[in-house]
């Protein structure tokens, strides 16, 4: 591994565009206005499942200021899968269909001069529906005789993965545990709602500005839907106010494109928050069944895991989530006999898709919860029980996939010290012996996560670097930065390698017209793959710079080094040329200095994290307060500690909500209950505990300067740690998320004020 010679890596570095963000100058898509721009609004289905018998838009069309009304008759006939990665898998969706499959499904849309007119027009569209049976529970939708939501049937494709011999494993067990878990759909809740601005010109070219984690995937899908060659579609993501997986799939874009094509005017669709909550993708609601065999020693001999995934109304990322979580099932515990069985089922609710963790928060919540129960039954400490069953670094999993430098054991060990696990356990014990109004509980959970899509699909990223006339650089990158600092990290790597200061490297990003292909912000691949591409491009750039410098200085390349924005003689640092002189030299010789690097993964090394939580449960109200929290992660070499910590903090906020307060509730008709942001119950500043975060000193030899992923791993074990803490406080194993206070009150003895 190269040392951090130029002192850029390993330093706390704020996001590149922080100045624009703190001044309010950064233009997010909703801040953009174009001359002649129309407002687009969508009419949503009031029914969970219905056939559209007729649409009468004549009154709406006559309304002054309405420029277009579109519905199924205008929609292209191509079915698509709105998820770029899965675009070829079970394409089920139409821009507008004759059948609506959830409350909030798109029925029609309007483009008008003002939002008020657009809304008025929506109210004038007459739609007649024939209601159909609907299913909110995947097990009902999967039952024989259920009405199919799509031609291919309700069960998408079952995923079965296994290793070893399950029967034998259970036969070897001293005890077998079986339990079921229920987890809700979760709203991503980025602070910026979905929005897109579509432009269609007389040149037949479609341009869409959209906050997107996957501009290339969206272009691929739009090209399919509208039968356009890719050179006539430009998807740009100028800024993103949070993504978390929710800004991967197409949402408003195809509708905006259709309206722009119909009117020849730019059309902006901005979702209201209530629309965003109701009609965008969610984390999968799941029903999970686990059967685990263990020996008295704590060794897990077999684990059989079955999950029903509620896919929602369209295919989306569900198959990938089912596969990915299956992969993760094998990545942490070395149990030889394993089976994973996923049954993804269409249901009449909003499309479930990618969300931070991609199926793993569900998986590791359920596993860690059951293991908490098992450890207690065996009289073992949970940390000891889990680590006994973890893989070691550089093991291969039971299906032969290499894990890389997996440091899960060290994460738990260090976390126990940082959190002072032993004294936390003593506090819990004291509270059990002598319970007051507040019960104390502590919990732990560990989880792995990958660092790319390797093994799932070809995972590549390209970065281009251009030297300007004064020796400064412009980086062109397709890597989407959700605010997590991926572009900052790429710039740091380039700066480190070339000795060119960060403020002399500009960033052009996520524009399908100018940047090279990138798979998109999936799979925690930003650092490993996006960083890998930055390193490759920077190394080519170094070669180019050295070639010019050697010629200019009359020295051999190997005598030269790059630092402080110059190329200098290694042995005589007084002798140097500046980057500006190098650029000038190249131009004089009729050469430019422009390179690209494409990185394709050959591994998906596993990161890991162990989370520790302490909670207080109020026996009078059922209220839970998370009082203390610690997280230790293995991310390989930490390149930007500031950003890494920020990722973990944010991941924990999501995990806490998952455990205790969030979760989309539907009423019996499939309508989302509570479509205001306050109804989502995101954790607020006063509710958050103090958090300690630490990163191991570690190294992943295949990663850029030793680094691997963090983003998703930050949230995967979090809900499980909190849920375990609550279960341990109350002395009852809760099996449904979120753990609501009403449920807690059913399981605690009422508190009696002493002395009464």
């Amino acid at each position, binding site marked *: 591994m190269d040392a951090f010679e130029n002192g850029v890596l390993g330093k706390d570095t704020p*996001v590149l565009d*922080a100045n624009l963000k703190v*001044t309010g100058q950064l233009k997010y898509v909703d801040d953009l206005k174009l001359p002649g721009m129309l407002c687009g609004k969508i009419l949503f289905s009031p029914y969970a499942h219905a056939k559209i018998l007729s649409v009468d838009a004549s009154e709406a069309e006559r309304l002054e200021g309405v420029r277009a009304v579109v519905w199924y008759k205008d929609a292209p006939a191509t079915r698509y899968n709105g998820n770029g990665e899965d675009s070829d898998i079970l394409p089920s969706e139409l821009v507008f269909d004759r059948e609506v499959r959830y409350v909030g499904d798109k029925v029609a849309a309007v483009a008008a001069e003002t939002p008020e007119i657009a809304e008025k027009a929506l109210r004038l569209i007459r739609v007649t529906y024939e209601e159909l049976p609907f299913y909110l529970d995947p097990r009902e939708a999967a039952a024989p005789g259920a009405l199919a939501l799509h031609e291919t049937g309700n069960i998408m494709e079952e995923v079965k993965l296994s290793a070893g011999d399950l029967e034998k494993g259970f036969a070897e067990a001293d005890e077998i545990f079986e339990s079921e878990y229920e987890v809700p759909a979760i709203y991503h809740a980025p602070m910026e709602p979905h929005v897109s601005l579509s432009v269609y010109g007389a040149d037949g070219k479609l341009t869409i500005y959209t906050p997107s984690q996957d501009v290339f995937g969206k272009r691929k899908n739009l090209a399919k839907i509208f039968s356009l060659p890719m050179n006539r579609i430009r998807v740009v993501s100028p800024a993103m106010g949070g993504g978390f997986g929710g800004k991967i799939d197409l949402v408003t874009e195809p509708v905006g494109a259709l309206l722009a094509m119909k009117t020849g005017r730019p059309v902006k669709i901005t979702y209201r928050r209530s629309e965003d909550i109701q009609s965008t993708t969610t984390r999968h609601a799941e029903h999970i069944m686990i059967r685990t065999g263990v020996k008295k020693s704590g060794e897990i001999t077999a684990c059989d895991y079955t999950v029903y995934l509620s896919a929602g109304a369209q295919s989306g990322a569900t198959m990938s989530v089912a596969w990915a979580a299956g992969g993760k099932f094998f990545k942490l515990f070395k149990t030889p006999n394993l089976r994973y069985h996923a049954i993804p089922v269409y249901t009449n609710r909003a499309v479930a898709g990618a969300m931070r963790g991609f199926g793993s928060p569900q998986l590791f919540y359920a596993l860690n919860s059951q293991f908490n129960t098992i450890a207690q039954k065996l009289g073992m400490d949970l940390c000891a029980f889990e680590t006994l069953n973890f893989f070691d670094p550089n093991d291969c999993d039971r299906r032969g996939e290499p894990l890389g430098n997996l440091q899960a054991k060290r994460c738990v060990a260090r976390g126990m010290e940082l959190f002072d696990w032993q004294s936390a356990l003593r506090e819990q014990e004291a509270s059990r012996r002598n319970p007051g109004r507040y019960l104390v509980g502590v919990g732990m959970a560990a989880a792995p996560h990958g660092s790319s899509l390797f093994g799932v699909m070809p995972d590549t990223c390209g970065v281009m670097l251009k030297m300007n006339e004064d020796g400064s650089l412009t980086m062109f990158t397709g890597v989407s930065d959700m605010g*997590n*600092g991926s572009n900052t990290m790429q710039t740091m790597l380039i700066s480190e390698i070339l000795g060119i200061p960060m403020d002399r490297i500009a960033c052009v990003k996520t524009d399908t017209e100018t940047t090279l292909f990138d798979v998109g912000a999936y799979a925690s691949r930003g650092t490993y793959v996006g960083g890998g591409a930055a390193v490759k491009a920077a190394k080519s750039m170094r070669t180019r710079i050295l070639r010019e410098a050697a010629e200019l200085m009359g020295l051999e390349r190997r005598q030269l080094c790059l630092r402080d924005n110059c190329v200098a003689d290694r042995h005589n640092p007084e002798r140097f040329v500046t980057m500006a002189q190098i650029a000038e030299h190249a131009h004089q010789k009729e050469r430019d200095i422009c390179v690209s690097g494409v990185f394709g993964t050959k591994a998906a090394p596993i990161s890991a994290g162990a989370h520790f939580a302490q909670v207080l449960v109020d026996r009078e109200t059922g209220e839970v307060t998370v009082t203390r929290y610690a997280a230790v992660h293995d991310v390989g070499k930490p390149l930007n500690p500031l*950003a890494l*910590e920020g990722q973990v*903090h944010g991941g924990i906020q999501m995990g806490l909500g998952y455990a205790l307060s969030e979760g989309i509730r539907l009423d019996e008709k499939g309508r989302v209950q509570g479509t205001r942001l306050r109804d989502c119950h995101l954790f607020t*500043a006063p509710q958050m505990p103090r958090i300690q975060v630490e990163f191991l000193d570690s190294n992943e030899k295949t990663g850029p300067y030793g680094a691997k992923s963090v983003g998703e791993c930050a949230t995967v074990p979090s809900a499980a740690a909190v849920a375990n803490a609550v279960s341990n406080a109350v002395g009852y194993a809760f099996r449904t998320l979120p753990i609501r206070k009403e449920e807690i009150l059913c399981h605690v003895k009422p508190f009696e004020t002493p002395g009464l």
Partner: protein
Amino acid sequence: MESVTLNVNGKDCPVQVEKNWTLLYVLREVLDLTGTKCGCSTNDCGACRVLVDGEAKNSCCLLARNLQGCRIVTIEGIARGGELHPIQKAFIEAGAVQCGFCTPGMIISTKGLLDQNPDPTEEEIRKALEHNLCRCTGYVKIVEAVQLAAKRLREE
């Protein structure tokens, strides 16, 4: 339409407003001050916060026509001349900025707090940010940024 004059970032801005236009709408759509964000328009997120006569308020829930003569400060009015305000600098340095969508509102709440209470406790800071949602940071570095800004402002 009614005429109303808002004092925005120290400048009088006469505007014509409809009865139901919110301050947020006027700032973003009429005055082109898009730094103030709309995260919900239902008083739930704090992305639209501005100072109204020194107090941080959600602009999505204020009717513009009721604000005749009020002094309104938006995120665009926080920097001191060409230089970033110490609160802005602290947000950057502390790593309190990720996607940035909550940032203008957070900075406004911070300014409102520190103008009244230059030495807040951590609890007071968290309380002051209670109505500002952030989905990226877990608020950890935001709280640190407020502490850093408070310290620097006290030392000025």
